């Protein structure tokens, strides 16, 4: 990507604490216009806090945040005219119908009657809500509510959209629909900044990914660049007996064990040599290996090798 224009999002040295708890410890990144940027991390990593600061809901303690070139602290009104936020908590008015919710956004966007009506009708159609348009949002399913929520964000045609965990809690089908919507937005030239706990989601959607862990960015790059940090992929070893798994785990302390499936996952860096090394090691320790599969590297491995945990399922902090 060539940096010809102002980046859509430019963050440097961003810090935020709540009381004595440091949530963001000096993070920085840039998002090019028209791209998808994913902030990936476990619960409690500080993703939502970051998105709240970027969307002017929270003030940073320190650091600089510019959205479309405007400072979020000094020029929040300019920032707000560029952005749209769909947060984790549903921001629809459940007492009103889908259409009324969208109309409200059209009125607040000062679109004028004909354009407002047109855009509301278009969005209902595009988000597959035309049939439910006249029903109160309180009767909507989770997926429908999320689509309405995002449609409301889009009424004012923001240039930069913040999506805080857009697919958390959705069924696989609704998740796919949401992914298509994001791709469609990017095709229209919108910049998308999203947070997610799902490595697959970041991998599929984002041009660039930043890995947030414990308030710090531990890695940043394109999905391919991040995967290159862990060149070997991973090897999954299956065992017949618990005792074999125990012994293997002792020989390979960095591996992740699954006691239920009796498997051990080893992230290794040496390709075929690496696999041979693992097998030799187990052989010398007389551990019976039942089965072996080699997986190409994915973001899970990156996460594992950078944070020492398999993925985001930690204690949650909200």
């Amino acid at each position, binding site marked *: 990507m060539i940096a010809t224009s102002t980046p859509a999002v430019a963050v440097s040295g961003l810090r935020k604490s709540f009381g004595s708890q440091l949530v963001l410890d000096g993070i920085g990144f840039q998002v090019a216009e028209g791209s998808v940027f994913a902030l990936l991390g476990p619960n409690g990593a500080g993703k*939502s806090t970051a998105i709240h600061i970027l969307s002017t809901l*929270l003030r940073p303690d320190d650091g600089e945040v510019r959205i479309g070139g405007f400072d979020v602290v000094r020029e929040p009104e300019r920032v707000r*005219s560029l*952005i749209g936020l769909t947060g984790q*908590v549903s921001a629809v008015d459940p*007492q009103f119908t889908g259409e*009324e919710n969208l109309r409200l956004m059209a009125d*607040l966007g*000062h679109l004028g009657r004909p354009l407002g009506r047109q855009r509301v009708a278009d969005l209902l159609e595009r988000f597959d809500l035309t049939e439910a348009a006249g029903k109160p949002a309180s009767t909507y399913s989770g997926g429908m509510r999320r689509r309405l929520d995002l449609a409301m964000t889009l009424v004012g045609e923001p240039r930069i959209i913040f999506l805080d965990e857009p697919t958390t809690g959705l069924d696989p089908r609704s998740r796919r629909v949401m992914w298509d919507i994001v791709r469609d937005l990017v095709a229209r030239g919108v910049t998308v900044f999203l947070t997610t706990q799902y490595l697959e989601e970041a991998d599929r959607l984002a041009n660039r990914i930043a890995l947030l862990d414990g308030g710090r960015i531990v890695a940043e790059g394109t999905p391919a660049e991040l995967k290159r940090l862990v060149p070997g992929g991973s090897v999954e070893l299956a065992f017949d007996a618990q005792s074999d798994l125990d012994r293997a785990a002792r020989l390979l302390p960095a591996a992740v064990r699954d006691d239920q499936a009796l498997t051990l996952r080893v992230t290794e860096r040496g390709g075929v040599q690496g696999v041979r090394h693992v097998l030799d090691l187990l052989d010398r320790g007389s551990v019976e290996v039942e089965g072996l599969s080699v997986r190409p590297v994915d973001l899970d491995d990156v996460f594992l090798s950078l944070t020492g945990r398999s993925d985001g399922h930690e204690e949650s902090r909200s």
Partner: protein
Amino acid sequence: MTTHVVADSATMFRRSLRRMRRYPSLTFFTAGLPVVFLLLFVYVLGGTMGAGIGGPASAGGARDAYLAYVLPGILLLTVVGVGTGTAISIAMDKTQGIIARFRTMSIARASVLTGHVLGGVVQAFLALAIVVVVAVVVGFRPTTGALSVAAALGVLALTAIAVAWLSVAMGMAPESVETASNLPMILTLLLFLSSAFVPTASMPEPLRWFAEHQPFTPIAETLRGLLLGTPIGSDALIAVAWCVVISVAAFVWAQRLYERLPARPAA
């Protein structure tokens, strides 16, 4: 940008009106309590209370005298009761995350709250209309002219605005909707500690001092004067001053709360 204060407030006001139209039971409910109080005060307590404030000795005459005396209090009770509804509606917005959406949009900052306030004032007048109809049916007649009655409506409007701003702030301050719905009850209590239901002269000294120096007494006395021709004196000025001061202070308080709302509503 912020140049759309009027248009955005109007949009938010329409939202409040639509909610009112969709849930008319709320209006009837808010009018219901003062109507019940009116009937209780007049038919159950009126005979005794009327004699106590120096009305005619006959039970019927005393009742009529107390009806006239207590009506301003009942009207204020109506206005204050609507405040609870206003506090609940903003507290619900807050818990539903839609306020966070409004705060990230380029809309006039005050408009979200102004919409609730205007909605609250309209709701108060709808409820007042119901209460007044019942009052007239049971025999209340203003003894002053149309101009005075219009002025009384003006005082009620100012009071409704002050109560609405206070209720908006009170609706945002606490964490839960339940607390938000209880806070405006303080105003109901305050109303009972004024000259709205009995003359302050009958109260023990410290309470009497409090009653005479809190906002509801001059407001009640002004309404009484405008509807029944009793002397008003400086009460009108003091009543208006209280309403303006409370409105401005509550507006500032509410704006500050709005700016500092947590980014994520309490689940």
